[in-house]
């Protein structure tokens, strides 16, 4: 996974609470077999009118936010479905950082699997960033993960909290399957110790399943 250390970029404001993952990547795009190409359809129903004509009223289509890589959002961002297609879309579109007062658990977790930093700031700090973004064309933020700061060019500096283990995953771009497999002996031991109560009973009257079971 691509490590995350620092990032500076244009901010796009999405001024809506409780943005759910159905809005980020609607159902019809969940039939894909790969992780690629979700940037084009990110926020599909809000972003496109009939015939995939860009909706001029949706913030992502405003010319001033073209090329944005910092997504400024409201509380409970990413609620609903566990679909990882949502952070795949966020990343593929070009966002590396999300800033919000809070996130839904599964989405928050999924961001770290994809090298996206979901930074948490206080509500009044997020309000201030919304105001600055609206006011100043080209408003950009610099994000420094080692020091846990978000700053602009006018001297504003906010610090954000992040669990040290989460921080490490992003900084090093860790492959967490590889990490867990380092504990293979402990997994073996666990399975042996629990074997007596973990017996999988072969089904008695299951009518049919494939693979010759």
């Amino acid at each position, binding site marked *: 996974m691509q490590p995350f250390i620092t990032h500076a970029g244009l901010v796009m404001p999405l001024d809506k609470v409780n943005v759910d993952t159905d809005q980020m990547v609607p159902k019809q795009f969940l039939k*894909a077999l790969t992780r690629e190409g979700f940037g084009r359809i990110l926020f599909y129903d809000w972003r496109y009118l009939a015939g995939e004509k860009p909706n001029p009223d949706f913030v992502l289509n405003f010319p001033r936010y073209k090329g944005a890589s910092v997504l400024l959002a409201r509380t409970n961002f990413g609620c609903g479905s566990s679909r990882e297609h949502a952070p795949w879309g966020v990343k593929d579109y070009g966002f590396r950082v999300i800033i919000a007062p809070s996130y839904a658990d599964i989405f928050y*977790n999924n961001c770290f699997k994809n090298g996206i930093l979901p930074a948490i700031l206080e509500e009044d700090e997020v309000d201030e960033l919304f105001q600055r973004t609206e006011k100043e064309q080209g408003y950009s933020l610099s994000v420094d993960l080692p020091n846990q700061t978000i700053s602009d060019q006018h001297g504003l500096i906010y610090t954000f909290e992040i669990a040290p283990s989460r921080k490490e995953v992003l900084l090093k771009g860790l492959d967490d399957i590889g990490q*867990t497999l380092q504990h293979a002996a402990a*997994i073996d031991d666990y399975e042996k110790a629990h074997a007596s109560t973990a017996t999988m009973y072969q089904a008695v009257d299951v009518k049919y399943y494939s693979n010759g079971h």
Partner: protein
Amino acid sequence: MTLKNLYQKIWDDHVVHEEPGKPSVIYIDRHLIHEGTSPQAFAGLKSEGRKVRRPDLTFAVMDHSVPTKDRLLPIVDQDAKLQFEALARNCAETNVRLFDMNSQNQGIVHIIGPELGITQPGQTIVCGDSHTSTHGAFGTLAFGIGTSEVEHVLATQCLVQGKSKTMHIVVNGKRPKGVTAKDIILAIIGKIGIGGGTGCVVEYGGEAIRALSMDGRMTVCNMTIEGGARAGMVAPDDTTFAYMEGRPFVPRGKDFQNAVERWRLLKTDDGATFDMTIELRAGEIGPQVTWGTNPGMVTSVTGRVPDPHDFKDPNDQKATESALKYMGLKSGTPIVDIPVDRVFIGSCTNSRLDDLRAAAQLVAGKHVAKTIKQALIVPGSRGIKAQAEKEGLDKVFTQAGFEWRDAGCSMCIGMNADVLPPHERSASTSNRNFEGRQGRDSRTHLVSPVMAAAAAIAGHFVDVREFDVAHVE
């Protein structure tokens, strides 16, 4: 002795590796997969040259995109077809059991886990689907994960997890007639908000929860995620054990008795604490109807569509305004005056036998209103479908003007042909009323199965307590 709540007991029993200040490696007892969120996980596994560690603990099913009409016809949707083929191929290559769409045991993943006895108390269960919380009804720690974590579990049979906070939701007193498990959970979400449970695992308790059948408890746990908590659970009791006995994957004979002895210990110790406690009185809950674009935008059927200014927070005002615009509703409209175009009874929330029996009892001898364009009954599994047909429920429904379909996720998510058209309004027993959820620009009102059935007959929402109440349990 340290007093523990149920979550802490299950957690402690599954720690494979822990070190201070870091998330733990926890063991996963059952991994459920479906066609929608697994192809990329199998592809990742293959590209890294990794194997499925425990195919015997992994169960696959086709549910999200399956047609609910004739299964023997070719699959028209080419993308869906490719996904089904990928799942079949991946399962065959890795020796994972697959209930494909023609299996007699096929159904929605969260329906068949409990139905086949794959789900058992004290286990950890994950699936790449947020409604995995359903399985918590058995005193199981069950939650949804993303595709990267699906790959992680396939490779290691473990997950890396931080410990959650715990929330105790106690529903006291008796549930009034016409008020169902669905109304209880919608009322809870209305109270705590859709982000209220973020960071928490919920344990449900209280007289009204204990009195629920397993089908009802599953409905409550299923929608726990709509309140922001990844997992919800109910301590197992005699109701649980009676439901489980004799199911295909459940231990048998003396082994079952021994298992029940162990399962009885799965409860919160007297005096153990939670980070938060919420209490509700069942007697004060009425049949619920959502009016907005998330499950927390809900009121009693006796209520009215709210005004944005009913809310203090400017963000809530804005959200309400935008929701009413999307839903095509005017503030102050009585809920019972809202007409309905289509009715959907199904989904992992409300497609079990209890749900179908209650709805059938209500519509027996009546007919769907002329203004209703479609009324669908989609059983959660083929097992449920077969049992319902044995009881003659299919005939009750079809005679009343409903369509009787095959099992799958169907119009809850609209990934197959069962889509709610633009600007049409549904009374739906599913779990999400998000914008576009059932189809682009479609308008979803979440309700219980009896409320949906009554709306189908009346053509608009009605208070089921006044609607032929003798037939409503």
